[in-house]
């Protein structure tokens, strides 16, 4: 199956494009994953963290005397000491034009959200540590709070950070063209206010840390359930005021991330402090109650969006002003900007303006949950596009055909400031329509079924930004990370390769995809590639896995390292075989003469010669090893269309997704089966945030009302339809092998497609659904708002 390539960058053949089973699976299927809670060390102690139960409170007194007397309790840390000994957590992606609000590992006098750490206890056993928490008396003095973004901007709202003088952290306007003129000449203007619920990514493994400080040796080994080992190392060194060389971060298996495990959290700092104080390893495993209250949330926003169009349904302009709820502090990634960049979607919109307003509330900080702003602005636009279509009397598909960017419009600079690289957006729409049978459905669509139910069809188009346009771009925006990825590849004496990457495995399958790319580019079998991942020891500096960027940046680095490996292996083999290097090629793990297969050496033999260094060409160094970095010159965009057929019962608002299709393009698919898995998972989360999930806060008490898995409903296997996928593969011109990112695509279009299908089912009743999640109650209320069920027949 393996083939030799002229150059590693050439279009996909060989191992790229193979649905190879994953290398990670063998250990995970046997229960031999190496998750943080599986780390058991001699003398290990266990930490439990006491948290503020109020959304906002002064901490008057913490009485730890009784807890200290409990046998097995080894240490207790309070806020004043933690604040004295540590620096705030480094913000990796600062907001433009504002100072960062310092977030320390523990609150000292005042806690600003339910779940903020107030005390930590270390004991011989987790049960004892929790007993001790129960024995600690914290005297809280509750303070006025605000948990709603719009209320937080009222003049009488309590201000979270008095030094800012306001809860409006920053307003970021963007735009292009003359949007007022566009609206002035529009024949149709449609607008609405949308509220999008706060959700959590809810990985099955919560956060977790084991810290082991060895006194004298001054080595701090940290096992962390993180997506960013190298960046966490940088952040931890800063917060602990330690040289980075002292710190090693290990993330060997991570039980899901989805953006929630991007960067340092307070508990890593606390576990390290305790371990350094006691000279013993300290483990902390987040429980689910803590997870709901202290791990970053996502999505929550209020959008006010308007579309201007002419009578033919041509979109002339778009405005969107939205509030994003940041929570009480800026988490390492903080609230999303992608809602702005991508707000006009895949359409030819010449004039537009968008403004993000970041608002502080007394809630858990928001972070980069999968999609990171893209699902939100895509939803509000796609729902409004349907309303414009109804207004001008066009089919929702026809209006999209009239406005989608065509291949020859690309590259296109959107009014939000993104440059879409390439693709065939109309082809993705048509592919989805063909698969779902749009025309056939329309031809036979009943106004209602015999049982009173209605059935409708809806579509939603999207563009997904994947990766970053280079490290220099991120530097201009004061980010504390780069856009590159890196690998070290070593040819080994068995004729295979060891590949070292800082990307930690959390389900995305990079061990397999990196092995496939390396195998493809070198000319060996992926089964002979061993990937060593997620350990800051032995891996080159990298950024980490997020922003649908790992394969984009990683493929470039692997291609460059593989080129060096091949070059050197061929030079050494040529020397040993006594032939010209230009006569040699590598395939199936063998260096051989083109057209003369008898003249050959296995890569294992070549690597062995390089290992001994006894018979190398003049001037050639021993070893066959290469480290390469790749900094993408631009970002590349995935795109596609979702289509849904949905049945609605107008009497109750209940709805059922009968079919769901997604057509998309992520460029060259390194492993098509893994691409499907990424899409399924993203879609499931899109369905979750769309129809099931919402973190509900009581406005009076400011309390999270559903912070358990019993009350917070994420989809089960029984709640989701069969996802039908269609693929386009337009190679990206700006990446190695033409790959585009795919990690977040599934989260973006499903809610809008289903909402549009619900509204279509009920048409001509002008039902407006302007919130997420869409529950049966929300649909029922929307029906009532439009005149009631009696009119829906």
């Amino acid at each position, binding site marked *: 199956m393996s083939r030799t390539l002229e150059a590693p960058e050439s279009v996909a053949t060989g191992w790229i494009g193979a649905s190879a089973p994953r290398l990670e699976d*063998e250990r995970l299927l046997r229960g031999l994953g190496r998750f943080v*809670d599986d780390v058991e060390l001699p003398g290990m102690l266990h930490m439990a963290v006491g948290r503020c139960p109020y959304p906002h409170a002064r901490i008057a007194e913490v009485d730890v005397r009784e807890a200290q007397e409990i046998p097995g309790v080894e240490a207790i840390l309070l806020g004043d000491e933690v604040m004295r000994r540590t620096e705030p957590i480094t913000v990796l992606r600062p907001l433009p034009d504002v100072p960062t609000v310092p977030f320390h590992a523990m609150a000292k006098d005042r806690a600003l959200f339910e779940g903020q750490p107030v005390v930590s206890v270390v004991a011989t056993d987790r049960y004892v540590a929790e007993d001790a928490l129960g024995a600690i008396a914290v005297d809280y003095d509750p303070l006025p709070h605000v948990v709603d973004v719009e209320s937080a901007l009222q003049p009488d709202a309590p201000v979270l950070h008095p030094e800012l003088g306001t809860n409006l952290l920053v307003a970021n306007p963007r735009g292009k063209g003359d949007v007022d003129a566009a609206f002035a000449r529009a024949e149709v203007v449609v607008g609405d206010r949308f509220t999008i619920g706060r959700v959590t990514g809810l990985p*099955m493994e919560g956060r977790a840390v084991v810290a082991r400080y060895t006194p004298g040796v001054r080595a701090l080994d940290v096992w962390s359930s993180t997506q960013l080992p190298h960046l966490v190392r940088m952040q931890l060194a800063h917060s602990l005021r330690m040289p980075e060389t002292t710190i090693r971060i290990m993330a060997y298996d991570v039980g899901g991330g989805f953006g929630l495990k991007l960067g340092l959290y307070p508990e890593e700092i606390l576990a390290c402090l305790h371990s350094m104080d006691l000279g013993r390893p300290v483990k902390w495993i987040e429980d689910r109650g803590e997870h709901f209250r202290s791990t970053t949330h996502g999505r929550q926003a209020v959008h006010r969006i308007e579309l201007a169009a002419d009578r033919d349904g041509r979109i002339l302009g778009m405005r969107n002003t939205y509030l994003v709820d940041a929570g009480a502090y800026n988490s390492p990634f903080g609230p999303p900007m992608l809602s702005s960049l991508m707000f006009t979607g895949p359409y030819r919109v010449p004039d537009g303006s968008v403004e993000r307003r970041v608002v502080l509330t007394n809630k858990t900080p928001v972070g980069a949950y999968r999609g990171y702003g893209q699902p939100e602005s895509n939803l509000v636009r796609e729902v409004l596009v349907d309303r414009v279509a109804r207004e001008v009397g066009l089919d929702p598909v026809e209006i999209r055909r009239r406005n989608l960017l065509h291949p020859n419009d690309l590259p296109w600079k959107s009014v939000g400031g993104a440059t879409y690289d390439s693709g065939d957006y109309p082809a993705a729409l048509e592919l989805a329509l063909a698969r779902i049978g749009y025309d056939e459905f329309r031809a036979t669509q009943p106004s209602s079924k015999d049982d009173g139910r209605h059935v409708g069809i809806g579509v939603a188009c999207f563009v997904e930004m994947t990766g970053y346009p280079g490290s220099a771009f991120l530097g201009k925006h004061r980010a504390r990370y780069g856009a590159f990825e890196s690998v070290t590849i070593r040819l080994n004496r068995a004729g295979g390769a060891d590949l070292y990457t800082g990307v930690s495995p959390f389900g995305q399958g990079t061990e397999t995809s990196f092995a496939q790319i390396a195998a493809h580019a070198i000319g060996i079998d992926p089964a002979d590639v061993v990937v060593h991942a997620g350990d800051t020891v032995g891996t080159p500096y990298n950024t980490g896995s997020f922003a649908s960027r790992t394969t984009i940046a990683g493929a470039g680095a692997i291609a460059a390292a593989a080129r060096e490996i091949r070059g050197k292996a061929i030079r050494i083999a040529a020397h040993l075989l006594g032939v010209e290097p230009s006569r040699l090629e590598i395939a199936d793990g063998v260096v051989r003469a083109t057209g003369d297969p008898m003249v050959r050496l296995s890569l294992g033999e070549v690597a062995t010669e390089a290992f001994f260094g006894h018979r190398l060409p003049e001037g050639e160094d021993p070893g066959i090893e290469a480290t390469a970095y790749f900094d993408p010159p631009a970002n590349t965009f995935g795109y596609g269309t979702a289509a849904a057929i949905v049945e609605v019962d107008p009497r109750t608002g209940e709805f059922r997704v009968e079919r769901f299709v997604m057509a998309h393009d992520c460029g060259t698919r390194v492993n098509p089966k893994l691409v499907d898995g990424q899409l*399924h998972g993203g879609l499931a989360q899109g369905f979750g945030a769309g129809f099931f999930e919402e973190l509900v806060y009581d406005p009076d008490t400011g309390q999270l009302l559903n912070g358990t898995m*019993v009350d917070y409903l994420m989809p089960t296997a029984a709640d989701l339809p069969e*996802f039908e996928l269609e693929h386009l593969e337009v190679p990206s011109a700006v990446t190695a092998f033409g790959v585009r990112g795919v990690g977040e695509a599934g989260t973006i279009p499903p809610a809008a497609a289903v909402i549009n299908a619900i509204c279509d089912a009920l048409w001509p009743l002008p039902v407006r659904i302007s919130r997420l999640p869409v529950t049966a109650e929300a649909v029922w209320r929307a029906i009532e708002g439009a005149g009631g069920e009696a009119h829906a027949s």
Partner: protein
Amino acid sequence: MNVRVTVNGEAHERDVEPRRLLVDFLRHDLGLHGTHVGCEQGVCGMCTVLFDGEALKSCLMLAPQADGHEITTVESLAPGDDLHPLQEAFRQEHGLQCGYCTPAFLLAALAIERRRQRLEGEELRAELAGTLCRCTGYQHVVAAVERYFRERAEAAVP
């Protein structure tokens, strides 16, 4: 309290605190790390084991309650180099991503098989709804279990 249990065919006897959760006992006293913890409330199913052959969430039971019973965990499925056919079906169908929920799905599927049921489609989805997964969207999990049941049925036909 003294607890005697048979885990994966091997007898164990330990002194534990009465409040020790069965899952903590399996993981941290017996060192069987393949059984995971996700919510400690009996919702997510990460801690699923077979308890006298039935699927059970081991975070909802105390270790002393397991006294005299037989428990099966994921570690027993493939003692040698070859994967169990169910594990192989998961591998072929890409039925796992981060792998944290995988042991639970394997045992849940085996519990269905022990009841001599060969489910598919919506019936199977309903039966697997006691275990959550945030990565896969379940489609490949369902496909893997269906594949396993199909292959077992085919193997049973001479």
